[in-house]
């Protein structure tokens, strides 16, 4: 199994790369030139903060600790990876990167207007209240998993020899990652309010080439995300596991790619029909929508199932991103429209197009599996939405009434990069900075005579 192990090392690295720099680029390019750095910083610090928190108590609270009411595990039993076998560190690594990107995804909803300090405080609180518990419930044998006798599905449809009759399916994180991030984004937007001039001033992407790089690197990294999420049946690292590794991963790779291709084209088609032209932002958005939707289902559908999920997700999200203008919530970079909607589409459609012929699949509605899988998938999604909403509300309100979320109106209209980070992203003038020129103030004395010495 050292081949599988090598793949896990690679997958963990790939998923870390999804947050930094991929997501930072995807979001940064869509923001305005006066706030791109703040946008990127939210992804960088999500990695900085959650990376540490995860090792301290995240792993313990998700997988290692003793189960508390099926909702989360004891955060202290494996605090700082106490007692965790070195051979399991790679799984800590892999799971760590998931927690990181989930938190980072949220930042897109609250672009341009949030105190950097508020974000830094939000991160550890949110992953602790929302992410770690949901990870435990879905993947840690908790309330939303098929392994728990008192779990949602078991309670509904029974439990036989150690597993729920109808196993809830979330291969790589439709609920834990995307629905969770999407809901959190929505709740924060409602708490924090709109950007100045939302809906009135132009707020177009300032650099679509960055967004395209980001989308491409996200796709690349997503192979680690989805294909790396294989769980072994035997689990003893023997022949059977190797055989499973050497076939299931091929399927998840292909499904991931197919759904993403389909979603890209579907989004472009919607734009063509609605707006007359397919855009590059649309292609990039479609890519992400497809990746999101296939995340929970990549192991449980065949090629046609993947195509269907991709098409539906691409089209649905392409429409969904318009809703914020209708209802007037400023989900700035469409975390709701893409991750919440895409996550729901992927999670629920499993109940319809999942196929027993796929490595990790049971027959869905379409394959005569009846309505039960659909019910389980839907209720699982619903529960995840509720949990995430409440957890985020608690954290969000706590910050709102202590630190406060918003920067001042002046700062916001001048640009958050200046005011929260004291920087500007670009200085492209060929006159070498003259346009935004300024004298160097700090510690100059010692070097004032530099011109003379230059060739010393």
């Amino acid at each position, binding site marked *: 199994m050292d081949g599988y192990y090598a793949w896990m090392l690679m997958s963990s690295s790939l998923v870390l790369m999804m947050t930094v720099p991929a997501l930072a680029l995807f979001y940064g390019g869509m923001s305005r030139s006066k706030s791109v750095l703040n946008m990127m910083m939210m992804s960088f610090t999500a990695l900085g903060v959650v990376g540490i928190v995860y090792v301290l108590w995240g792993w313990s609270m998700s997988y290692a600790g003793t189960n508390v009411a099926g909702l989360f595990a004891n955060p202290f039993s494996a605090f700082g990876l106490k007692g965790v076998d070195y051979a399991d560190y790679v799984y800590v690594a892999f799971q760590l990167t998931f927690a990181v990107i989930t938190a980072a995804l949220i930042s897109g909803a609250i672009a341009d207007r949030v105190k950097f300090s508020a974000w830094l405080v939000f991160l550890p609180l949110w992953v602790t209240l929302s992410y770690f518990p949901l990870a435990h419930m879905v993947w840690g044998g908790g309330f939303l998993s098929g392994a728990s006798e008192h779990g949602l599905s078991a309670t509904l449809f029974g439990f036989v020899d150690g597993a729920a009759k109808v196993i809830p399916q979330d291969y790589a994180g439709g609920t834990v990652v995307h629905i969770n991030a999407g809901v959190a984004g929505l709740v924060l937007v409602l708490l924090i309010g709109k950007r100045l*001039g939302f809906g009135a*001033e132009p707020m177009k992407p300032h650099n679509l080439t960055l967004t395209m790089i980001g989308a491409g690197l996200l796709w690349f990294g997503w192979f680690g995300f989805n294909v790396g999420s294989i769980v072994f049946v035997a689990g003893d690292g023997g022949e059977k596991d190797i055989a499973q590794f050497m076939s299931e991963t091929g399927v998840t790779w292909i499904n991931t790619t197919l759904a993403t291709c389909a979603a890209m084209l579907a989004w472009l088609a919607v734009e063509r029909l609605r707006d007359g032209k397919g855009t590059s932002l649309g292609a990039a958005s479609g890519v992400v929508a497809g990746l999101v939707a296939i995340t929970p289902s990549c192991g449980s559908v065949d090629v046609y199932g993947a195509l269907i999920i991709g098409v539906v997700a691409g089209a649905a999200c392409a429409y969904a991103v318009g809703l914020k203008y209708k209802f007037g919530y400023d989900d700035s970079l469409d975390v709701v429209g893409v991750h919440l909607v895409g996550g729901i589409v992927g999670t629920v459609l499993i109940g319809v197009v999942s196929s027993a012929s796929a490595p990790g699949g049971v027959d869905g509605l379409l394959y005569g599996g009846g309505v039960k899988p659909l019910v389980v998938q839907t209720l699982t999604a619903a529960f995840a939405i509720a949990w995430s909403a409440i957890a985020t509300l608690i954290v969000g309100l706590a910050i709102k009434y202590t630190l406060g979320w918003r920067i001042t109106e002046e700062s916001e*209209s001048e640009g958050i990069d*200046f005011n929260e980070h*004291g*920087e*500007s992203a670009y200085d492209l003038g060929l006159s070498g900075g003259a*346009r*935004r*020129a*300024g*004298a*160097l*103030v*700090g*510690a100059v004395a010692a070097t004032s005579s530099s011109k003379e010495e230059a060739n010393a």
Partner: protein
Amino acid sequence: MKLITAVIKPHKWEDVREALETFGVTGMTVSEVSGYGRQKGHTEVYRGAEYDIALVPKIRIEIVVDDSDAADVVDIVVKTAQTGRIGDGKVWVAPVDSVVRVRTGERDEAAL
């Protein structure tokens, strides 16, 4: 003919444009410039080196108008661009001998 040059705060541009449109100004030329004045710029720090950014972004608008409209246009710009905070900008009026519309070769009033 007069040439009215207005230097205003970027986020005021939309309002000014609308106001001028309503008044009947059919054209103008706009550029991104940097302003230096009472309004102080930012301080940026890069790896411990502090930069004093003296310049602040401004929008510069040029409008060629009939002598008769000059006063009104200036008032409109001043009224709509005003925030009352330092850095609102300046508007100046200068004489123009003649103006031509490239497309047609029409001159002066007809060219506007």
